[in-house]
């Protein structure tokens, strides 16, 4: 278990402020934020490399705030891996075992076990110079896992590998996480990673946590325009909320959301300026007005078609730019080419106000 209580860290001019969250034992936590939002510093504070100004770090229920890094039982993999350049692959992996309790044969066995788990048996005798990005990553991971840490800290572990390797490594990492039963905290700038890997995600913005929750919750219900925009939930529109039945005072209430020429029916909790998040998969496209009760129905012109395999993203101009996701098959069927006029339908309950 990793628990941070009001952690505040100063690094030069940079301040990481009042960070509180918890990754349960055996869980997989993600910290996501744009570059320069203090993600690496946060991990270094958890590992004990950086002393916090205030706040506490608890690992497995124990307050480790004043413990030296070597006594915290954490494994750390930096973004650029930082393998020891004066040691070969095997020596790198064995580094954390050499001064431990294991005898030489148990050490060799542990190295072989990890090499098998990560598929790098063939690399053991090699020099670390000339390893590919993916190989380096696996060696760094094996080195961090060798002394059986109870906590694993990963700093952008997939940023230096190609997309194909990234997919493979992600799957492997999840498997390793289960196999080694290690509580993991990873930082990334890629929300997709959070959705695939994380049990809990903290979105960082300017040194503070902007939102905390399960990745799918954060994705569906971003709490601010920043979070919605950053994690790519969908189109974020700025506008004004007004009550449809001024006489009623229920919460939530039926309301209008107006942004330029767009006037959408929404379910709101308060009036006034707001941001509406429209997820691409919630925009329904057709060539003719469809029958039904949904009243948010308006015309838009296709401005760009972005094919990404089975799903196509249709960029629309409806007085405001919008993006819709449709299967590539129905994009074909609907004849969605640039300049085509389509009817957009979206349910009031699918529009998320922040």
């Amino acid at each position, binding site marked *: 278990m990793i628990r941070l209580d009001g952690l505040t860290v100063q690094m030069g001019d940079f301040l990481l402020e009042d960070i509180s969250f918890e990754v349960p034992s055996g869980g997989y936590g993600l910290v996501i934020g744009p570059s320069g939002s203090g993600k690496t510093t946060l991990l270094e504070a958890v*590992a004990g*490399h950086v002393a916090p100004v205030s706040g506490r770090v608890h690992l497995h229920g124990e307050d480790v705030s004043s413990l030296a890094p070597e006594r915290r039982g954490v494994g750390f993999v930096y973004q650029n891996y930082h393998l020891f350049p004066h040691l070969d692959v095997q020596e790198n992996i064995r580094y954390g075992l050499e001064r431990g309790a294991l005898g030489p044969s148990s050490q060799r066995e542990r190295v072989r076990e990890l090499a098998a788990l990560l598929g790098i048996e063939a690399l053991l005798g090699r020099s670390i110079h000339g390893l590919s990005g993916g190989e380096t990553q696996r060696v760094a991971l094996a080195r961090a896992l060798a002394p059986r840490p109870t906590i694993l800290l990963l700093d952008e572990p997939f940023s230096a590998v190609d997309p194909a390797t990234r997919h493979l490594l992600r799957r492997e990492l999840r498997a390793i996480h289960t196999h080694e039963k290690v509580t993991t905290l990873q930082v990334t700038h890629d929300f997709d990673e959070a959705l695939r890997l994380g049990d809990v995600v903290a979105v960082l913005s300017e040194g503070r946590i902007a939102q905390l929750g399960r990745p799918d919750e954060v994705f569906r219900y971003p709490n601010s325009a920043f979070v919605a925009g950053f994690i790519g939930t969908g189109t974020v529109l700025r506008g004004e909320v007004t009550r449809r039945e001024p006489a009623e005072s229920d919460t939530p209430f039926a309301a209008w959301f107006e942004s330029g020429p767009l006037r959408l029916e929404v379910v709101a909790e308060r009036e006034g300026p707001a941001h509406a998040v429209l997820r691409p998969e919630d925009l329904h496209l057709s060539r003719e007005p469809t029958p039904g009760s949904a009243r948010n129905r308006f015309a838009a012109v296709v401005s760009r078609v972005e094919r990404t395999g089975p799903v196509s993203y249709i960029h629309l101009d409806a007085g405001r730019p919008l993006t819709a996701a449709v299967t590539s098959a129905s994009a074909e069927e609907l004849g969605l080419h640039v300049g085509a006029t389509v009817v957009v339908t979206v349910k009031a309950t699918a529009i998320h106000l922040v």
Partner: protein
Amino acid sequence: MSAKDSLPHGAPSRRRTPTSWARVAPAALGALLVLFIVGPLLRLLLLATPESLGQALQDQELQASIALTLATATAATLLGALMGVPLAYLLARRSFRGRRLVEAVVELPVVIPHPVAGIALLLFLGRHSAVGGAFARIGVEFVSHVPGIVAGMLFVSVPILVSGAREAFRGVDPRLERVARTLGDSPAVAFRRVTLPLAGRGILAASVLAWARSVSEFGAIVILTYNPQVASVLIYDRFTTLGLPAAVPAALLLLAVALAVFTVVRMLQPAERR
């Protein structure tokens, strides 16, 4: 001049290819400078006849003097490394009040003319000074004694050693030390297992250079300790009392030692730059 003419560099179309003399001039000037260094040394080496070398090798006074030079330079380098390498680590890794001042002080001997350094050391370490007096009471005398030679050498070679070792430490990514810490090492163990092996070559190269600087020192030593004579003082002494021919064999031998050291340093350096 139109706006188009003032395009930033990198706009290739309007660039004229350099005329041939513009390409040749830097090479020619450079060649002149190289010749200026190689010429005198070659001229000296041409005097290395079997007789002159035999003469040098039989000259017991010269041999004793070279042995003294090598021994004192080694002592000065070891002393400098003992105090300078930890300081270099601090300068490379820690930020503390007055760090820039300490850095400047350590570099200071570079700009001080060596006889001036010798006079300053003489005043500081002379038997009638507080420091010199204290050392004299425990039996260490500097002026006109071997420790004076070591003091002069240490003073002039410290900048080379400390700045070289500092750069070697700076070349080691602090994150490597942090990784070692999370793998269970205390700061001292991480230093021994990661930092020192990685910075070692650079520190060694800096030490060899500092040692070579000590071997070649004359100005500070000649004021502190004329006798016993280190090689540079001996050569100067023979030149002024007996003339050029008497100085040449000793000069040749010292040049050979210098070239040998230089070769060792060159062999250490390229790997360091990678």
